[in-house]
């Protein structure tokens, strides 16, 4: 049986990699995928804790998180498509319209 700490450390590793991805990438689609990675890392923690405490609440929470993440992906991708449809480069640095 694998100790729960291993799952938590794996979850932390995935979360941090996702966070670095959000900070380091310029392509909004790749940033968005890194955010998805962070969602998934946290889901792993929830499931691990549910297993530890033998409580279904963690599973329900993951279910809700997946639903909200799907809604977020739909809206976020719609915004990205709307913003970058007419642009030459797909790069968040080009969004400097409100720069002073």
């Amino acid at each position, binding site marked *: *049986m*694998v*100790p*729960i*700490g*291993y799952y*938590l*450390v*794996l979850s932390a590793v*995935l*979360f*941090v*990699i*996702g*966070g*670095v991805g959000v*900070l*380091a*990438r*310029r392509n909004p*689609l*790749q940033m*968005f*995928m*890194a955010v*998805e*990675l962070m969602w*998934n890392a946290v*889901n*792993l923690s929830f*499931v691990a804790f*549910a*297993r*530890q405490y*033998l409580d*279904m609440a963690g*599973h*329900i929470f*993951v*279910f*809700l998180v*997946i*639903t*909200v993440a*799907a*809604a*977020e*992906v*739909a*809206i976020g*991708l*719609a915004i*990205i*498509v*709307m913003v970058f449809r007419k642009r*030459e*480069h*797909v*790069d968040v*640095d080009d969004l400097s319209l409100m720069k002073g």
Partner: protein
Amino acid sequence: MLSSVVFWIAAVLAVSGALGVVTTRNPVHTALSLVLTMLSLGVLFLLLHAEFLAVVEVLVYAGAVMVLFLFVVTLLMAGVKPPKEEHHLRLAYQTLIAGLFGLILFVLVLHSVVGAGWVGTLAGPQGGSFGSIASFGTALFTRYLLPFELTAVVLLVAVIGVVVLGREQE
């Protein structure tokens, strides 16, 4: 121990997929790396007796959500040239700073995990019906009925929002 072997294989695959998400240049490769991570996470969910969630992870995430991503990638990146290098110099040392922040975050999270004494703790014995689809459904439709209904509202808002955003702008 079969479960430890499966855990380590899935963990290595998940981390390598995550590294692929951060390092690959082509967005299609990024999406495929993310699919690898999600499939590995599905295996880990099975190890943790979250059978329904493992199926949902593979079907909804690795299936539906990533197909949506790939649609948008092909839609947006079709005519786009890869950005030139000087285009990437506007924020200097971005990768370095991101790595530094990531390291700090990792140390903090690891400290809290180790500090709480979780690393050596064995998962408790599996109790009865924990993790089965029947107990999941019972919990979802009795005690957690209100949150479940609220997700319906969230999805409705998402649908309306996408329709409004996706219209042709005048």
